[in-house]
Each structure stands twice: as C-alpha cells, then as structure tokens.
C-alpha cells in the first residue's frame, strides 16, 4: 500500500486510482474536462476554473466495446481510450476536448462524440507542419476553442485569467524539469517508474494541486537515501505513449530509465509557453512548435527542391543532443505503439541520428496490451546485452 504521507506515496495512490480527486472536485461543483492528448491547451481550461483530466487507455483491459464503433487495425491506444469511455470508466467527465494530433485521434474523436454524450465537446484542428502560415491557422483554431469554452461556462476568458493560468502551467513544467534534474546523478535519485506515477498523477489533478505534489516530491527525492540502484545502462525511452508502470518496470529491470521522452514523461514539460501580449499567441506557438511529438514534421528547409538530410535530422532531433550529454545516456529504446504511423515514419531517421551522436538504440513495437510484455522483456534484455 502506498504511504500517503509522502509525495511519492501520494503520487502512487493517485496513479492507482486516478479518478478519485476528480470525483471529489465534481461533487464540490467543479466541471471536469477530459482530453486524450497533449495537444489540448490546458491553460484555457484552467483559466475558466475547469479541471483538466487526461484520459488514458489501459493495457490491462481488452478492447471489446470500441470494436463495435471503430475499425480494428489502427492505433490500439486510442481504441482503448474510447473503449474505456464506452464502458463508463471516466463517466464523471463533463466534457471532452480532442485535437487533430493524428488521423486516428481525429476520426475517433468524432465517433467518440457521437457515442458518448457530454455536456461539452470541442475538436481542435492542428496543422502538421511548423510553417508560419500553420501558426496563423492554429491561432484561429484556438480562437474558436475560446468561444465554445466561453459559451459552455458562461464566463469570459480574459487575457488576465489566461496569463495567470499560463504562469501556473509553466510553473508545473519547470517543476517537472526540476524533477528530471534528479535523474542526472549516477545512480539516479528517482526511477522512471516513480516519475511515471507522478506525471500520471499530475494529469489527474488541477494544476495548483499538481504543483504542490511536485514540490513535495522534489524535496523528498533530493534528500532520500532509498533511491534506485545503479543498473547496466542509462536509458532514453522515446515513445508516443507509454503509460503503464508494468511496461516501465520491464525497461528498469536491467537499466535506469533516466529520460522518458514520451507523452507521459518529459515531452509535455520540456519547453515553456512564452508570455505574449495576447496569451493565445504564446499558446499557439508552444502547442504547435514546441511539443516534440512525431505528429508534427519539422524539416529544416521549406520550399527548396533539394534538402540536406543531415540538416533535417538536426532540425527534427537536435534537442536530443543535449539530453544525451546532460543525462549521460548510453542507450535508447524507440518504443512504438503498433500502427502509430507518425512515430513509425520518424523512427528510422531518429535511429540514424542517435547513431550519429553515438547512442546505440533498438526499436520495439507493442500492441498496447499486457500480452506484449514477454516479447518486450526478451528484446530489452537482448539490447542491454549488446551494449553492456
């Protein structure tokens, strides 16, 4: 049983029972807004006193209900998310906000809205590239989002409220980065499994409560004596989403996971929203340009007939160079969810880039079920045998 008096214990408790706090807040009159992807600007929800609640699938629950509504040969993660919704897993959620982070999320969003009745739904369209005109288009999308939120809440989303929310969420990003500073020592002071529990807890709480939890966790971890042991390798995990500690423990059985570059890890916290006069401008720039998900393509040059491959790699993956150096990473696992086209397309180039900067890597595909863990274990162990 988790020790609830400690920050890590509380994070574990929330990880194991994520809806608990959201249900309490709902009973106290708050509105809970579900979202299945990191591309929903949570600041706009927080600013209107709505509680963002990230919806996850479950690798332990076989998809059954969603198969009636969706094709079966595509993203098992989003199928699992919808399956949970159809089974009433998150039935305390008042509204659902989705984004065109990828085609499966886009198409599933519309099926989802028609199968489950919410008081509020909104879909945000997202450009797939980082061109200047993409940004203008995306700003317009956030303007539409603002309008439907205002209509739903009956309140005005003023620039001041939004600026305050941006500050709170930026503080959360800074705190998560501070937590990741604590995986830099050898051995790390905090494990990948513990960080995953903390981050899934953050995605189940209002931002201020999440920040309090983070502050407590960071202070505990800094002075702890019972941190993880030094293992064979210091791993980087690159994934669209890897959200179950059972999976993380397969990685950590023989290695220290010191950087989890996935949606339930470092990715949504790596950068900050710039404070702009119109806070929507800063949000648009952050959500389109700064989240390093493979769903957005970042080529080095636009409009030229000939592109330089090395420059493209640098433009798409350059941020890994500093991560590899600062976290002393000596191996990477490129962990793909089956049928995830954006990550599958990005993988060979990233593998190549990592090789160029001296990091051996392997890629493993999984079908977002617990049945994938045994083959995963063999692949991870074999990879560790090659690099140790």
């Amino acid at each position: 049983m988790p020790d609830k008096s400690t920050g890590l214990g509380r994070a574990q408790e929330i990880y194991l029972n994520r809806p608990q706090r959201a249900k309490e807040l709902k009973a106290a009159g708050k509105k809970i807004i579900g979202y299945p992807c990191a591309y929903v600007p949570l600041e706009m929800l927080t600013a209107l006193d709505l509680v963002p609640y990230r919806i996850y699938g479950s690798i332990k629950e076989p998809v059954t209900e969603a198969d009636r509504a969706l094709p079966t040969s595509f993203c098992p993660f989003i199928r699992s998310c919808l399956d949970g919704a159809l089974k009433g897993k998150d039935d305390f959620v008042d509204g659902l906000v989705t984004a065109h982070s990828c085609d499966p999320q886009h198409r599933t969003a519309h099926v989802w809205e028609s199968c489950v009745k919410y008081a509020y739904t909104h879909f945000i369209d997202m450009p797939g590239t980082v061109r200047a005109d993409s940004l203008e288009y995306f700003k317009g999308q956030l303007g539409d989002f603002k309008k439907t939120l205002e209509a739903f809440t009956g309140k005005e989303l003023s620039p001041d409220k939004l600026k305050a929310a941006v500050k709170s969420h930026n503080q959360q990003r800074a705190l998560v980065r501070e937590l990741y500073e604590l995986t830099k020592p050898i051995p790390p002071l905090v494990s990948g499994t513990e960080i995953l529990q903390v981050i899934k807890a953050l995605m189940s709480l209002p931002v201020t409560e999440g920040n309090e939890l983070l502050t407590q966790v960071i202070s505990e971890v800094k002075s702890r004596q019972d941190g993880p042991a030094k293992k064979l390798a210091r791993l980087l995990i690159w994934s669209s989403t890897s959200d179950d500690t059972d999976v993380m423990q397969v990685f950590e059985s023989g290695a220290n996971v010191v950087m989890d570059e996935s949606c339930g890890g470092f990715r949504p916290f790596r950068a900050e929203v710039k404070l702009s006069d119109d806070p929507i401008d800063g949000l648009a720039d952050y959500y389109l340009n700064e989240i390093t998900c493979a769903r957005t393509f970042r080529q080095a040059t636009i409009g030229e007939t000939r592109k330089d491959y090395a420059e493209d790699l640098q433009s798409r993956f350059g941020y890994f160079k500093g991560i590899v150096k600062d976290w002393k990473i000596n191996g990477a696992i490129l962990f793909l969810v089956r049928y995830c086209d954006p990550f599958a397309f990005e993988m060979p180039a990233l593998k190549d880039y990592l090789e160029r900067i001296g990091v051996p890597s392997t890629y493993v595909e999984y079908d977002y079920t617990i049945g994938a863990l045994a083959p995963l274990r063999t692949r991870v162990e074999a990879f560790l045998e090659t690099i140790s």
Partner: protein
Amino acid sequence: MYFAGVDIGSTMTKVVLTDTTDRILSVIKGPTGPEHRRLANEVMRMALEQAGVPLEEVAYIVATGYGRLNVPFADRQITELSCHARGIYSLFPNIRTAIDIGGQDAKCMKVNNGKLVDFVMNDKCAAGTGRFLEVIAATLGIKLEDLGALSLKSTKKASISNFCTIFAQQEIVARLSEGEKVEDIIAGIHDALASRVAALAQRLKIEPDVVLTGGVAKNSGMIKAMRDNLDCEILVPPDPLITGAMGAAILAKETHMKAAADGETLPTKPRRLEKATFFTEETN
C-alpha cells in the same frame, strides 16, 4: 568441471552439457508443451544421466529462451539472442549474420566475435515462424518433416501472396482447387516464409557468413528458399536446434572462468532438481 545450457523455447526444450573445452557431453531435446515450468528439471536429469555427470559437479548453469525464468536451478539468465550468437560462433568462427527461425519467432542477429551486436525480431504473429509451416503441413495433411523433401520436387512454385497464416491457409485451399501440385504449393509456401524472414533480416546489413538455425533450418526446402531470397550462401549447423543451449553452456563456462580469474566466487542456485512452482496450489 561441467557446464550446462538450458534453452526453453516456445516449442522445444533443449539441454546441452559441456566440459571446460566446450566439448558436448550430452544433448537432450524434447517438446516444451504446456507444462514447461515443470519440465526443466526432467530434461536436465536426463542430460546428466546420459553424460554420467552428477549435478553437483556442474559448476555453472545458464538458462535461455522464452522459459528462461522457469528454470529454478539456473544460476543466470541470458536471452536466446546472445546465446545463439555465441553458440553459432563456436561452430562457424566467420559468422557475421545469424538467422534463427523457431516455433514462435524469427530473429536475425549481427554477430561480431561471438558477441551479439544488433538484432531484429518478428512481430507478435505466426507469420514468419515455424508455426506457419506447422499449420500449413496440417492443412495439406503432410508431416512437418516431409515438407522440405517434397518442396524440392517442385518444378514451378505456386504463388502464395499472403504472409498471414490464416489467409495463406485459405489461399492454399484455393490453389488446390485450381489443380496446383502439392509440391509446388509447398515450394510457394517456403518462398513466402523465406521472403518474410529475408525482409526482416535485411533491416540489418547482411554480411557473410550467414548461418540459419532453429527448427525451420531442418527443412531443406526452407534452406533453399532462404538462399534464393537472400541471394547468398547459407550455412546450417549439423543440429540447428541446439545452438541456443550450446551458447548458453559456453557462456556459463565463460561467466564462471572470468569470475574465477578475477578471484570471485559467483553465487549459484542450490543443486536440486525441483520443478518450478508458480501457482499457489503447488506451494500448499
């Protein structure tokens, strides 16, 4: 002083007992079956008996394969990828690429001086594995071990376009109804499987020597199909089933010898042949 490698694969369990010169003293192979958690002690007992070696004289034991965690008397677990690499290297010192096609997976390994340096494995699916051939043999009413010789009689291999085991089965029925000869169909099936494995292997840069192991390497038709698909010479060990267990035994010796050279004594498991217990009713 003796060493043992225990390879519990999805279909077959293999034990190899060696001495300090890597000479093989005994080999036991048996079907893994659904009770493989209870089988490890039994095959080990048979291997010891065959060699006339008491268990206490086995200095170090390495378990490998999917069931590697179910060998209670093993001192260390190493994945089958590293074990195959080491085992094949002991037979073919110039090996650079190894392809192992077993019952439930196909793997391709890059090997440098006996050490695994890179690998790819098939996804979680029967396509590209020995199970594919088992299903096809059953569909055609032919013994698995007869597939190879029959397919070599083919003069015009049938075109089988499906990798999926179930769809391929349907395709075979369609070909049979069109009057295709059984040997041509089997040759087509071997080609379909080989092209699937070759595509997997080509994700790594294939360098000679290339060695094929696993149960599927006992099939002469498959060896030919792999040769045709990879367009290079394919070497096959005399017993392609035991390279994993052999590598495990060699790695057991190397682990033990390295520790001894460093003046260390490695912890070992009690030398008792007990069946593994996983279920609560067994411990009651």
